[in-house]
């Protein structure tokens, strides 16, 4: 569980109120994803919040370097890019050694440039983590039978007719449910990116 009292350490000075809001929204959406990402990389449970914290601080640190590019939602787009890079670096480091450590050593390691080849390979991994995370998030928003319909036809590769008979719903409702769930997964990913 996240320790609420560590939050103030992440508060960064942003002059623009809109950006401050964007930062708060970003944290709200991104932090749960990072926690899961860190946990799923095999980090021991007692280090999960620490490592997540380090990642968020790495993101926060770079905020000072931000310059508006003059286009819409510049801060938000920039923030997603930074977050993505920080997460990618983490994925690469994590592969080389089990990251249980925290503190400055970890941060320094985060700042070193990883190999380009690793970067590309991990890009797909990052996307994969996002999709899986988003799917878990939206699952609870739907009826059990709708989720089963989505899972059976999209993941297990069953035909709509078979799934309909198995779950006990109509074929038409399967078409509707699975598109709805897919659209929500995409929405969820967009909230983070």
């Amino acid at each position: 569980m996240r320790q609420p009292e560590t939050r103030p350490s992440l508060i960064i000075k942003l002059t623009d109120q809109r950006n401050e809001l964007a930062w708060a929204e970003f944290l709200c959406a991104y932090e749960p994803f990072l926690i899961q990402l860190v946990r799923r990389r095999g980090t021991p449970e007692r280090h999960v919040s620490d490592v997540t914290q380090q990642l968020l601080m790495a993101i926060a640190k770079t905020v000072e370097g931000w310059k508006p590019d003059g286009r819409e939602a510049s801060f938000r787009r920039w923030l997603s890019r930074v977050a993505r890079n920080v997460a990618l670096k983490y994925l690469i480091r994590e592969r080389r050694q089990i990251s249980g450590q925290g503190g400055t050593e970890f941060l320094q390691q985060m700042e070193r440039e990883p190999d380009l080849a690793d970067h590309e390979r991990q890009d797909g991994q990052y996307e994969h983590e996002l999709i899986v995370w988003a799917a878990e998030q939206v699952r609870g928003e739907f009826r059990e039978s709708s989720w089963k319909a989505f899972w059976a036809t999209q993941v297990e590769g069953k035909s709509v007719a078979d799934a309909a008979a198995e779950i006990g719903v109509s074929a038409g409702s399967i078409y509707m449910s699975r598109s709805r769930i897919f659209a929500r997964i995409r929405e969820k990913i967009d909230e983070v990116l």
Partner: protein
Amino acid sequence: MSLNRISCDSELLRLSLSDRLSEQQEESLTLHLAECVACQRELERLAGQQNDWDKVRQALRHELESSQGGEHDLQRLDRSAEREVAADEDAAVDFAVDFLEPSSAPGAIGRIGDIDILEVIGRGGMGVVLKGYQPELKRLVAVKVLAPHLAVSGSARQRFSREAQATAAIMHPNVVPILTVHSTGKLPFLVMPFLACESLHDRIVRQGALELVDILRIGLQTAQGLAAAHAQGIVHRDVKPANILLEKGVDRAMLTDFGLARAIDDASITRTGVIAGTPQYMSPEQARGDAVDARSDLFSLGSVLYTMATGRSPFRAESTYGILRRITDSRPRAIREINPGIPSWLISLIEKLLAKQPSQRFGSALDVAALFEQCLAHVQQPAAATLPDYCLPMRRKAWLKWLRRKRWTLGAMGLGAVSVALLLFVFRFLNPAVPLQSEVARPNESTVRSSPSAAAIPEWNATAQELRELDRDAAPFESRVGRLWDRSSAPVSPESNLPSTPSTDMESKP
């Protein structure tokens, strides 16, 4: 094709993606989709590019493959609901065991303060409910313990104890009392009497829609409980059938979980960004995340009444977001369609409670209670008690009002007609040789009977009598309603507040 009740409509498909269809639209689109390949494709295209579909499919397939065999945390994605419930129950027991001190009392699983804990009754969004026994006072109690993840947040703790203390101040037969609040320990908890009861939710699940008398009685008592809370400045925020307890053997409904919804909302929304529990009974202002006041509870009360009348909640959808959108945007299915036995006056009361705009609902829970009291009396003894004016159908109401306003004019007209008739009669009786004009035209008819004025005498007498009775009946209620409306903050007069048609109430006005 005969099954295709609707033609292809991409706007409808677009709306269906965000779960914004009405129930009828959803039904017909489901039928249509089963048959129409073009629409199946279009719906998928609208949901996202083929490339994105493939990515999601591949990612989840890959997860499924890598998770097969071992217990991977992602197994959750394919776990059945039953297993989750079982896991939840285990967690509740674990939690109780961790939290309790050992007890030497026979049959007890542990002890909190001076209470021997006998069993875990349930687990809700806010924590665990335990059944306990206080040996000194020889009474059974229910103990609600705030969940650990809420207890770590200082503001949630503060709010928990503040709201619990405020609720403890409400003394009302329709509010489950709070006996004590312990907010200083590791986990805050509150103690309530243990009641032999079932929740309204369980009752509706068990037997479906309720009898009219029960709907009115439970509605009345809930409104009374709410009025007592509102008088203390407390908004319940989570009025729903599961929070209305029905005592066994006694016709009494009691509200529980006052204000606690707030403590949970704050902590869980900031924690995860999602809404805890079912939002089905939320008001539109709650669903939008706006500020709420007592009138929000009135909307939820309307949803509860709807559920009692039909056996199903008014705003239903496939997803949480769909439910929230229905609450803010659409009218529920007409009560009459589901249960034709519900009288129209009750339907219009419920519809007014379910007005999207708080200002279009009743002024206060007290007003609602007063109306329900009258309605209940009428249903129990139709001869002795009339329905409140508010509940009379519009046409009859307007007609009675007109009659009452014009009673002197009408009386005078009646008197005039009677006098004329009398004069004519006397004149003819005294002077039968002189025929009336009508007799010239229709010589065969009996003149006395055909005289319209003379025939009207008993009718006018009866009408005058009815008017006097109506006046007598209406006087006490009118003065009462007058008082109620004066007290309520409603900026409009009772007359202008009446819906011209019930439907106008239900549409949100920008």
